[in-house]
């Protein structure tokens, strides 16, 4: 099923505030958001691994900063609704890849490991919840710097409810 494509044209790209320049964005974020440490760690690893050492300085300005990533996280999170009291929430982790328009609106969203959802009603419901989250008009378009479009035109959102399992 194709999402409506006209949304992108209707909404002009929004002006995005440039994040304040930081020498090392990691430090300040770690101080304030301790619980997200792990995921940020992997974000950093990933980005670092993909940046060829030679172009490091040039690419630095174009890379999404951690605060920009954090902003996306904060923007989508309120729209991620999970059925309360679900059993074995840890098994209901869903990764959704989204293709974005330049204005930050979601052009398409796909479940990454989609094969399983047809067999598992709970996983399917969890995947639907993720799809709803990235499509919810309350939480989009995503506010991202247009000059870094190449960095965020495709994103993967990892909806991970596993910490509910311990409750």
């Amino acid at each position: 099923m194709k999402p409506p494509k006209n949304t992108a044209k209707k909404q002009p790209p929004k002006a995005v505030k440039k994040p304040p320049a930081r020498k090392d964005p990691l430090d300040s974020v770690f101080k304030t958001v301790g619980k997200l440490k792990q995921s940020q760690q992997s974000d950093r690893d990933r980005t670092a691994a993909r940046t060829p050492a030679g172009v490091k300085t040039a690419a630095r300005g174009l890379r999404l900063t951690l605060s920009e990533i954090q902003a996306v996280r904060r923007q989508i999170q309120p729209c991620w609704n999970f059925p309360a009291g679900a059993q074995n929430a840890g098994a209901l982790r869903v990764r959704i890849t989204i293709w974005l328009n330049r204005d930050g609106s979601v052009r398409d969203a796909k479940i990454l490991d989609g094969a399983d959802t047809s067999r598992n009603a709970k996983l399917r419901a969890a995947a639907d919840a993720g799809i709803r989250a990235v499509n919810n008009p309350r939480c989009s378009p995503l506010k991202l710097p247009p000059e870094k479009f190449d960095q965020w035109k495709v994103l993967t959102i990892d909806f991970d409810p596993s910490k509910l399992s311990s409750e």
Partner: protein
Amino acid sequence: MPLPAPVSRLCRRLFMAGLLAFAVPATAAAQLTIRIDDPNFEPLPIAIVAPQASNDDERSTAGRIAGVVTANLEGSGLFRAIDPSAFVQRDGSEVLAPRFNDWKGIGAEALITGRVFHRTNGDIRIEFRLWDVATGRQLVGRRLETGRANWRRLAHKMSDAIYRRLTGESGYFDTRVVYVAESGPVLKRVKRLAIMDQDGANHRFLTNGKNLVMTPRFSPSAQEITYLEFVGEQPRVYILDIDSGQREIVGEFEGMTFAPRFSPDGNRIVMSLARDGNSEIYAMDLRTRATERLTRHPAIDTSPSYAPDGSRIVFDSDRSGRQKIYVMNADGSGVRRISNRPGRYATPVWSPRGDLIAFTKLEAGAFFIGVMQPNGEGERILAQGYLAEGPTWAPNGRVLMYYKKPRGGTAQLYSIDLTGRNERPMSTPEDASDPAWSPLLED
């Protein structure tokens, strides 16, 4: 919109293996993953459009069905029905092609449309569809048909289908509750068995109040109830057939039998037998009438409840000096205490999905309803009261019902979901205690 195959393959490799240092072309570096690990538990906004109808009779049915579905879904605490006065598309006319932007505009994330038909043979037919508003996908499309008097069950089945698709877990709306209706002065309480739909509709009494009755529980087929009745001064476990009203005693024992419960296959009843004042747990095969003693201890052993696979039994015993919860194998072997915190623990009930045991806890003069894992870990208190007792599980293992009595007040039934955030009183014609939730009804 499928991804170009190489990209898609790449994604899979990337995220399944998690080998981030893999040789990734620089162009794919845009694939940033953002993890979110703190979901919300807000009720899902859902638009429930009264099914389309072609005459006044049908419209009346359609309105009542929409009302029942709305009450069911909202009552679960997982959904918020959008006020129909906010609907842009009001008449349900676009049953097959809803204008999703209109529904998005009013904040709906899911949409139910349908059509109702009064058939000439006296049946009602409903065709309904559940839509994902964001993507315009149809998530459920189903036709249900039944006799006209049975319209509420149709609405319950519809609710169950919607609940199941959106939560991934089975519903609990097409179910009934049996309980003890209480009337009269405190010192001469009249108690009657009563049965009703899960939402309180179709209420009727099953006994006349002449004899004291308590602790009813459903058989797995939901056709029979086992319960305790005082005939004269003889408290005994009975089985009552709901439709025929026939009643049968469960075994002739010397001593009081009480605290009965069916095994998951319906072939056995496990209960307490007090002989010479000592309550022990026995299982009785309903076909052969053979009885098996499962506990041997001078303490009070009672409130047995089978695990859903029938392999184990959880029960209440004060053998340590205070009431605690124990688990044993179905043959009585391997007794193991699972509740280790302070307080008195009672009425353990194994969840139908097996993952939790609900219980009543008494501590510091108050009563609590809680759940713990079968190994005794992960205790969570969901509700409390001056007197609160006797949890029973909805068949999907996500909702509990119990009764509560405030100081100086009267007993009433409540339901609560596993988050403990959605406690709701049940309305009954009389004071109410000892609820038991049926399994999902069969077609």
